[in-house]
């Protein structure tokens, strides 16, 4: 299984870096990859049907509990087959759709990354590995949506899509880690036994919030759905593959995967029911107003994803069964409809459904595919979708207290969906052919065969649903925790309520189709609701954040050095002053200290004068000179305390740094004095507080008993071991010689700096 995933990445890397070599029919050759993988996964069907699961374990980062654990059970297999199966068709289709495109190599590269990552998502048993692949699908989606990157709308949509799914991704990551923390493992398999522990944990609600944030953003649930219509800027095969059949179902996969672990709890079920319910109605309702083929399909996809979430929310075995069949059905007909829309767009240059008509005359096989897909979407008998629709109604009818409500909204959604199915699959082909489309002709078989194939597949499984039940669907719902259910799919259930409801849906859908004609006017009418749409709200939130960011950053980082220094000192005084007052018993004794001598007093007075000169001088130059007076006074203290060498060093350093300073300052704009009296008082107060604070701390330290071990060692051994009579000198050049070495180096660097700044000609700098 690892090889199955890695192969995609390896081929992708080759394609991305050698993409230019991919010309002529070579793109077609890339399709061998998904086809091979599809066959490979098909070989697991018998084993999975017998209830086996397949494991692969490769240690990766054992110290974090992260292993490349892959597990293939029914649920994984269903998705793997979809990914590689639809993938094969999309790969073949794209070779013709993007024939001659200069970046076709790049395109296939992204597509391979996506396929491999998506397989990784559904095969990983380790949550964090799953997350790795999860994020990789988001990136490949980003690159694919933005494939036509010179188009601004494409760039915006891809950014939006990544922002929403990526943002959700971080929540998901937090959720995975929290669940891992609580259950003590990242393995989904092992987590099954911690189900009760997790559900009774006091952070259970947080876990759900985090997991759902990830799943709902990815699977375009209300109110995060709005990235999906934007994602339609991607080339159509990408929309078919990522944004309808597979990637957007990753969230569904995740919820299904967690059903036996976190599911069957009121929080879980109710959240899914509410979000899924809103999404399915909202998406379906919006889909009937669109006139862009891909827009219709995008909203109906949102609705379908809502149905899936809703079914998982019901959570009964019936509902899980309905969900698993619907995943398959939806992939069949929706991918088909997308591919058809792609052909129409490719050949006629428009996707406006109010203009498209009569294309059956020029593209008969495509019309058949469209018809099949539309019928499938409506759930007409003999298609697999009919079976699925029955199952959905059965699930809602048997869902307990709210059965009536659930059934009603399911019917409503299905009516809208069948309408939009007709619109996308039938409308473009019926009626009379407008003159401008008379030149349109059928493209290469690689483009019309895949949708036809999907349509026929839906029909085949519809006629013989037993092909699927025990071999694929039963293991799927077993993986979701319904261990003892025996699945037997039938086309015909007899005359019962469910059948009535199905019939009602179909009839209403047809009536709706006959009454409502797609038009720009209605699109504009629904457009008026946009100001309340989640997208608008999100966008204004983003705008607000940006505004705050601007204000805040300007406030904090306003360009004035003095303001920065003020803030730093203010922080220091607050933090340390607070701690000092709270935790230290302040005692100010001076009796232990020696008296101040004459020399000290004089030097000290000079320093005071210098300080005031610095503070009040109108000239920057004078201030710097006074500053160096301060430095020299310090040197005098060193001399006084018997360290002439140190004083000499200090003299040199002070002189050099002053020169350096002056040189730099000459290049600066003139000195600005703060006129604001209040600011001056504030700064003076702050400076005073800082000085007092440090003095108090210093006095406190002097009260502490001192440990003189080390200084005594120096005094005792300076002459004996260091062969020097001046202890300070011995410390400088011997005991702590490295400090002096480094200080000398500092001096050297400063000297180089001064020299270069004086010498370097500005003409030499370009």
């Amino acid at each position, binding site marked *: 299984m690892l090889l199955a995933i890695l192969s995609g990445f390896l081929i992708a890397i080759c394609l*991305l*870096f050698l993409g230019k070599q991919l010309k002529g029919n070579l793109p077609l050759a890339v399709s061998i990859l998904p086809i091979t993988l599809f066959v490979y996964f098909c070989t697991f069907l018998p084993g999975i049907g017998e209830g086996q699961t397949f494991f692969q374990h490769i240690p990766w980062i054992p*110290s*974090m509990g992260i292993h490349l654990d892959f597990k293939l059970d029914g649920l994984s297999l269903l998705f793997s087959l979809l990914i590689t199966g639809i993938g094969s068709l999309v790969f073949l289709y794209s070779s013709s759709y993007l024939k001659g495109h200069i970046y076709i190599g790049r395109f296939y590269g992204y597509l391979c990354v996506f396929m491999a990552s998506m397989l990784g998502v559904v095969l990983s048993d380790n949550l*964090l590995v799953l997350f*790795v692949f999860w994020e990789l699908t988001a*990136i490949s989606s*980003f690159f694919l949506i933005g494939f036509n*990157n*010179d188009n601004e709308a494409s*760039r915006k949509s891809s*950014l939006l899509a*990544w*922002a929403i799914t*990526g*943002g959700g991704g*971080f*929540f998901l990551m*937090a959720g995975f*880690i*929290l669940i891992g923390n609580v259950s003590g493992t990242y393995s989904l398999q092992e987590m099954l036994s911690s189900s009760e522990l997790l559900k009774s944990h006091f952070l259970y609600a947080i876990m759900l919030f985090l997991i759902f944030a990830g799943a709902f953003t990815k699977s375009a649930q209300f109110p995060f759905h709005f990235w999906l219509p934007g994602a339609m800027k991607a080339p159509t095969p990408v929309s078919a593959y990522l944004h309808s059949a597979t990637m957007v179902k990753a969230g569904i996969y995740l919820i299904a995967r967690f059903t036996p672990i976190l599911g069957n709890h009121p929080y879980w079920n109710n959240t899914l029911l509410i979000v899924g319910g809103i999404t399915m109605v909202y998406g379906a309702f919006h889909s009937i107003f669109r006139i862009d083929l891909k827009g219709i399909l995008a909203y109906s996809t949102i609705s379908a994803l809502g149905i899936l979430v809703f079914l998982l929310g019901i959570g009964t075995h019936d509902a899980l069964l309905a969900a698993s069949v619907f995943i398959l059905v939806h992939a069949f007909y929706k991918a088909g409809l997308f591919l058809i829309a792609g052909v129409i767009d490719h050949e006629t240059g428009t996707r406006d459904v109010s203009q498209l008509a009569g294309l059956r005359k020029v593209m008969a096989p495509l019309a058949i595919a469209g018809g099949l897909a539309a019928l499938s979407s409506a759930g007409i008998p003999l298609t697999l979708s009919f079976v699925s629709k029955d199952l959905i109604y059965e699930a809602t009818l048997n869902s307990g207290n709210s059965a009536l409500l659930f059934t009603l909204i399911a019917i409503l959604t299905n009516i809208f969906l069948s309408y939009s199915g007709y619109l996308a699959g039938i409308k473009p082909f019926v009626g009379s052919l407008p003159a401008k489309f008379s030149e349109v002709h059928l493209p290469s078989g690689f483009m019309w065969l895949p949708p036809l194939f999907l349509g026929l597949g839906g029909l085949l499984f519809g006629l013989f649903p037993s092909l699927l039940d025990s071999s694929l669907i039963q293991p799927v719902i077993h993986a979701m925790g319904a261990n003892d259910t025996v699945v037997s799919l039938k086309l015909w259930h007899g005359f019962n309520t469910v059948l009535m409801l199905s019939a009602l849906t179909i009839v209403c859908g047809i009536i709706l189709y006959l009454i409502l004609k797609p038009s720009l006017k209605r699109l504009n009418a629904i457009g008026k609701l946009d100001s309340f749409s989640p997208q608008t709200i999100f966008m204004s939130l983003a705008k607000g*954040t*940006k505004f705050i*960011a601007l204000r805040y*950053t300007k406030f*904090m*980082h306003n360009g004035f*050095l003095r303001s920065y220094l003020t*803030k730093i000192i203010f922080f*220091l005084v607050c933090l*340390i002053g607070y*701690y*000092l007052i709270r*935790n230290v*018993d302040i005692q100010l004794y001076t009796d232990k200290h020696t008296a101040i001598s004459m020399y000290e007093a004089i030097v000290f007075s000079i320093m005071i004068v210098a300080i005031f000169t610095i503070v009040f001088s109108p000239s920057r130059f004078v201030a710097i000179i006074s500053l160096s007076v301060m430095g020299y006074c310090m040197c005098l203290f060193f001399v006084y305390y018997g360290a002439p060498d140190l004083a000499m060093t200090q003299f040199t350093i002070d002189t050099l740094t002053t020169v350096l300073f002056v040189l*730099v300052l000459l*290049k*600066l704009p003139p000195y600005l004095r703060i006129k604001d009296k209040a600011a001056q008082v504030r700064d003076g107060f702050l400076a005073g507080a800082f000085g007092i604070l440090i003095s108090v*701390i*210093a006095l406190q330290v*002097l009260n*502490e008993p001192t*440990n003189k*071990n*080390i200084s005594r*060692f120096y005094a005792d051994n300076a002459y004996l071991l260091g062969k020097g009579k001046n202890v300070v000198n011995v410390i400088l050049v*011997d*005991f702590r010689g*490295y*400090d002096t070495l*480094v*200080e000398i180096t*500092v001096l050297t660097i*400063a000297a180089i*700096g001064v020299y270069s700044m004086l010498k*370097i*000609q500005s003409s*030499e*700098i*370009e």
Partner: protein
Amino acid sequence: MTSNFIILPLLLHMATAIVLMFLWKRITAQRIISVISNIVILIVGILLFMQTWKTGIITMQAGNWPAPFGITFVADVFSSTMVLFTSISALAVSIYSTVGINRARMKYGYFPIFHFLFMGLNGAFLTGDVFNLYVWFEIVIISSFVLMTLGGKKPQMESAIKYVAMNMLASVIFLTAIAILYGLTGSLNMADLSIKIAQIENRGLVNITGLLFFIGFGIKSAVFPLYYWLPSSYHTPPSAIAAIFGGLLTKVGIYALFRFFTLIFIPNEFITTAFSLIAVATLITGALGSIIKRDMRRMFSYLIVCHIGFMIAGLGLFTEVALAGALFYLFHDIIVKTNLFLVSGIIYRIKGTMNMPKLGGLYAEYPKLSLIMAIVFFSLVGIPPLSGFWPKINLFQAGFFGGNYLLIVAMIIASFVTLYVIAKMWTEAFWKTAPPLDPDEKAYIDGFTVLRPFSKLLLVFPVVMLMMVSLYIGFGAENIMVISKHIAAQMMDTSPYIKAVLGNEALNIQ
């Protein structure tokens, strides 16, 4: 174990700098010697790391004065890993500089000062003495200041002044803290301090000293609300210099914070809470700043601030898992941030601007280079399985474990904003078609295409090299995590460090 070998990483830089000073103006020789020297130092760094990994902590008592009387150099796994990653960055930047730095700067001492700077960094990582650390910091400040001003014009001067003023303030606070510490304990040796500080009864005063150190190092690490120098100064110097700054200057502050607050001052609840809050504020401040910047390098500067928050978060959570995560992040960050500025340098050379609205078309013009840059950006964002992803797991784990939800929210926001701004930058600089020039603007001639192939290689190779290291950190995360965990364990139990410096008896005396 004692060995003089451990100060080789700093002595070699010093020796190189001295040799280079004698080759003043002979810039070809300077370039070659600098690169060779960095290769040698990298090899030494690798050997040093392997030795500390195998045999444990190595010490060197300078002048053979026994600790705590002389200056002790200590190479534990933390130090040697820092030296190793620094040496990798140094090599990359030195190769890049051979083309990326203009000749005037090279003629006036760029390379000698470059080596002095790295001498300072390695010295700071290897010293076991508080005051000695201070003098290494001095080297770092003065050499970075000279590098910034070298051949600089007004904008460089202005930012250099801000840089040096705030860093001097940091040094003054650091020095004051040392004085107080010496007054309390009478010692400067870190291992000795570790023992002596624990014995002092006036805990209030001890913690105040710790907080003073925190502010000193916090300014250097650019944490909230002390970060101002960083966004003020990183966008003006040439990219090679900005790369050193971006990769390493803040990290030496982080290193010191980790060293001090695990070895000497064991944080109490007040301090860890303060760290957590500061981490949150740093993450948010950096994130907010990066949203609004239209200049690529200014945006990167704010991202540096933002990501410092992840490392401080590790200190705030203060568990072994969190520290390991923060260390992992530190190592990842050194490489990726250095690379980020090298990448921006190449973009600047191609386009002549860093202003994102004016950029565009890079993906079409340089598809392969763009993909390499994309990997760098994605490592930064922490797209799994690249290097920035793994440490976050540890930090999240520790955050949940300690119930620090505020920190988790801040980390999510910071990660999200990083993703968003980088993705946005990608769409603008790489995807968008370059906008037409204003009528009064001179057309910029691509300064990259005109280079000789070898010069191009010298610019691109360092980026690829660092990208490979980032990829290794990502895909070989196990190794990095094992190292980080080892260091974190040594931080929680410092007795091996103390024993290595002061001998086995030191711990028994008390």
